């Protein structure tokens, strides 16, 4: 449904995106992941025909964004970063306006409004001025606008910003429910969001795509070592050195409070048994021993910190896993 081929966008000397290529199949949900200023919004603006690409081709549903912008625009629902609402209109008036602007027949507008008001829980605020609504409601009105004409392609720029946790879950459920019938691109810098709703993740950094795969495969592919977290109550001073001697353990880092260690082990070699035996035999007071899998967050940090996307843990004293406490942890 969406096909982006070698698209480059330059603003004067500055290259915002550089030969970006990706595609989205019908019914697929794709997450566009990247730090601020990576080029997510620029890519979306090109896809929605808001701005033309400097080089390359972008197409939606078989129509070229440069040649047939109106056809493309008809098939897209777009939620920009800031919800595009008119504060002086009520929610219902605004959605009516959007429907008419898109040339929808009156009964389709009515049906669309009823559907979206129901789906996004806008019932209680339907007749209030948008200017008086909270950020969360405005965001939902923005989503209603994008969904109103039931477009085959949805482009959502950070759709869950400004929502409370309950609403975030609701919106994610909504996006998941759209998968299958709609192609969705959503940009985010919230990583769990990408894992939660998307089948595929494109990581963009500095205007370039640095990785593209399913969330699980991405973390598998970029894993260079298995990591084990160990916590003991009575760690002797030479604990780090002793741990390093365990076969398979490559690096040992003190991790937070005294007695917590993070061990990097050879890939595919589970050192937990040996580490556990050591801790118990030495009477260190073993309280926790678990392996840590790499989350998307780790992948993301690796990829966006190091341009090449192959961060070697040997490179520096800082562990490649930034914050193991936030990772998905598998208890032994």
């Amino acid at each position: 449904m969406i096909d982006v081929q070698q698209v480059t966008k330059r603003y004067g000397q500055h290259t915002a995106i550089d030969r970006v290529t990706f595609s989205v199949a019908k019914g697929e949900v794709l997450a566009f992941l990247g730090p601020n200023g990576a080029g997510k919004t620029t890519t979306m603006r090109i896809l929605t025909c808001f701005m033309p690409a400097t080089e390359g081709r972008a197409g939606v549903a078989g129509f070229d964004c440069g040649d047939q912008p109106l056809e493309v625009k008809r098939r897209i629902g777009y939620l920009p970063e800031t919800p595009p609402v008119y504060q002086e209109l009520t929610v219902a008036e605004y959605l009516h306006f959007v429907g008419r602007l898109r040339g929808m027949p009156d009964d389709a507008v009515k049906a669309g409004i009823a559907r979206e008001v129901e789906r996004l829980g806008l019932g209680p605020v339907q007749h209030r001025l948008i200017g008086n609504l909270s950020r969360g409601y405005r965001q939902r009105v923005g989503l209603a606008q994008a969904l109103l004409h039931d477009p085959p392609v949805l482009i959502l720029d950070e759709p869950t910003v400004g929502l409370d946790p309950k609403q975030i879950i609701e919106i994610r459920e909504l996006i998941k429910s759209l998968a299958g019938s709609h192609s969705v691109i959503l940009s985010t810098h919230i990583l769990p969001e990408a894992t939660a709703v998307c089948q595929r993740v494109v990581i963009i950094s500095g205007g370039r795509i640095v990785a593209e795969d399913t969330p699980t495969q991405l973390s598998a592919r970029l894993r260079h070592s298995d990591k084990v977290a160990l916590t003991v109550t009575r760690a002797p001073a030479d604990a780090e050195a002793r741990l390093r001697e365990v076969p398979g353990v490559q690096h040992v880092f003190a991790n937070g409070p005294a007695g917590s260690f993070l061990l990097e082990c050879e890939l595919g070699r589970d050192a937990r048994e040996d580490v556990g035996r050591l801790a118990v035999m030495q009477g260190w007071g073993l309280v926790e021993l678990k392996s840590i899998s790499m989350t998307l967050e780790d992948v993301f940090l690796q990829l966006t910190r190091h341009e090449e996307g192959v961060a070697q843990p040997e490179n520096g004293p800082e562990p490649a896993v930034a914050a193991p406490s936030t990772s998905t942890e598998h208890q032994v």
Partner: protein
Amino acid sequence: MTPVNAIIAKELRSYFVSPVVYVVGAVFLLIVGLLSYLYIVVAGQQAIQLMQMQGQAQINLNDLIFRNLFASVRFVLLIILPILTMRLFSEEMKLRTFEFLMTSPIGLNEIVSGKFMSVFLVFLGLLGLTGLIPLTVALFSDFDWFPILTGYLGLALLGALFLAVGVLASALTENQIVAAFVSFGLLLLLWLMAGLGSLLGDTTAGQIVSYLSFMEHYDHLVRGLIDTKDLVYFVSAIVLMLFLAHRVIDSTRWK
């Protein structure tokens, strides 16, 4: 409802829920009312003087009241219309609804013309209310209606031109104050070109400069002259301004 009508309806709605139209309208009608009161009183005094001197009064109300009034309203419009147009595009850019508008399946022509039409309708409404003035005068005296009607045609065209300049200014910036100021500037420039033209005298350059100003074209209409040349001037100037606005907006996409 076509997309253009949707835009017109939405813009009208936006105008009438904001206080701007009411304030601008009130000030406009107050000033125009006050001006016509002054001109009528002055005309009345002159009539009394003539009566005393000659025993009878034959004064031309068209000249004494309406030509003066039409000349003054021109200046009032110059000050008031930029306030109406300043929000048209600036506000959309500021509030980030511009991107939404530009990604809607509707051409830029339709957006520009829809916005222009909406503010033109607001202006016509205000102008229509001033129609009460000649109607009131007609209750008490006789005058020639034809120059009044052509004068109103002139006002409508002049207002449309001012509004088109305002649309262009609003497309240039996301700051509404700057937009209003730019349209004041452009309109004053067009105004002063008449002076420059008469300074240059009856040379080719002088004629061209005078032609470019709206002054003589508007004067013709106020005097009851309908000349195709003047109509062509207004229509082409309005279209040119809207076309420039179109180009300016389109170019923002390339930046």
